[in-house]
């Protein structure tokens, strides 16, 4: 009976949401804040990819909150899963295909990851997407040989310093009279690699942080036997 009632409610919810969706101005949105950003992004931030301008420039605080959430999730996961038991059994190594494939793919993945991070302000992509690819790159050898010890202290070092770099660049703007997370170093010429001031630096720090964090997260999740 409970299932029937909840199905009924779900159907009702769907119908009502569709009715409300009909009232929404789809196709001709009142682009109020977005319109102002589109006009002034080129000269205020100087990034070709306006979404990156919004992510790191206009709404920098959101992104700071965002990477902190990821950090909190990773810290929470580490807290919950705890350290690895000493004598825990190890999984056998993967088949030869995966081992050689992993060895081949690793440098490619790292290259693609850094490419996406560094061109975040020019082409679609950026810190998050590049960071995930880096994490996958570091996790692949672990899949191939589950036994390889994971350098958790190293990962948390990278993660901590990258996060600190992100916040310090924001604070530098504050200390030199501007506002917190204000893009510095001018805007440079649109479209070139070194344009949009501190945005590339921020995205690089962000990419490294996300990459190290997720690599640690995946390694901890993949460990067969952890508790305490």
């Amino acid at each position, binding site marked *: 009976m409970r*299932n029937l009632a*909840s*199905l009924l*409610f*779900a159907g009702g*919810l*769907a119908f009502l*949401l*569709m*009715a409300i*969706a*009909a009232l*929404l101005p*789809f*196709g*001709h*949105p009142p*682009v109020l*804040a*977005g*319109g102002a*950003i*589109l*006009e002034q*992004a*080129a000269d205020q931030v100087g990034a*070709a*990819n*306006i*979404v990156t*301008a*919004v*992510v790191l420039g*206009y*709404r920098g605080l*959101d*992104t700071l*909150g*965002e990477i902190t*959430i*990821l950090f*909190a*999730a*990773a810290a*929470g*996961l580490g807290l*919950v*899963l705890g350290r690895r038991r000493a004598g825990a059994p190890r999984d056998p190594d993967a088949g030869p295909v995966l081992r050689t494939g992993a060895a081949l793919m690793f440098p490619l993945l790292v290259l693609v990851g850094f490419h996406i991070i560094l061109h975040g302000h*020019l*082409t*679609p992509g950026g810190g*998050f997407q590049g960071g995930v690819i880096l994490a996958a790159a570091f996790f692949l050898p672990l899949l191939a040989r589950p036994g390889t010890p994971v350098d958790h202290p190293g990962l948390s070092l990278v993660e901590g310093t990258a996060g600190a770099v992100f916040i310090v660049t924001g604070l530098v703007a504050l200390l030199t009279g501007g506002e917190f997370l204000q893009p510095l170093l001018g805007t440079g010429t*649109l*479209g070139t690699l070194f344009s949009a001031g501190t945005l590339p630096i921020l995205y690089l720090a962000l990419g490294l942080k996300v990459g190290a964090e997720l690599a640690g*997260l995946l390694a901890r*999740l993949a460990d067969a036997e952890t*508790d305490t």
Partner: protein
Amino acid sequence: MMPAGLPFLFYAGAIGLLVIGISGIVLSRNLFRIILALALAEAGANLLLVLAGWHWGGSAPILGQGKALETMVDPVPQALVLTAIVIGVGIQALALALAVRAYRAYGTLDMRRLRNRMNRDIAAAAGIPAESSRDAPAGGRPTPPVPAAHRSGGGRA
């Protein structure tokens, strides 16, 4: 009453995902399914948010592609969805870690059994004797007198 044509499709997709996700959370008994349904619901909400910025014949908000500024789609919701997706995955990872530890602690993923064992543990930790919950309510308040007929009929020792 209903949105027509292309908008109907997009909204149907977004709201469909949202409602399937919500009904998944509400209906499923297995904890793993609930976490999956939560991810679906998040995806639905993200799609709804991106739809808020699209307009007919819009172009990607990337300068230097030769597109005019007026035709560009609103970049703000895309920045929001970027954040929302990563939040969703963050919560999902934490949820799965908790599910793993709950599975190891209680050996099951069925919500009903998990709830019963949790309540049993909380009562044990607080020191409430489980079996006495029926006859001796908290704080020694006088329980309403059992009508004489039951008492004699029941014949409890």
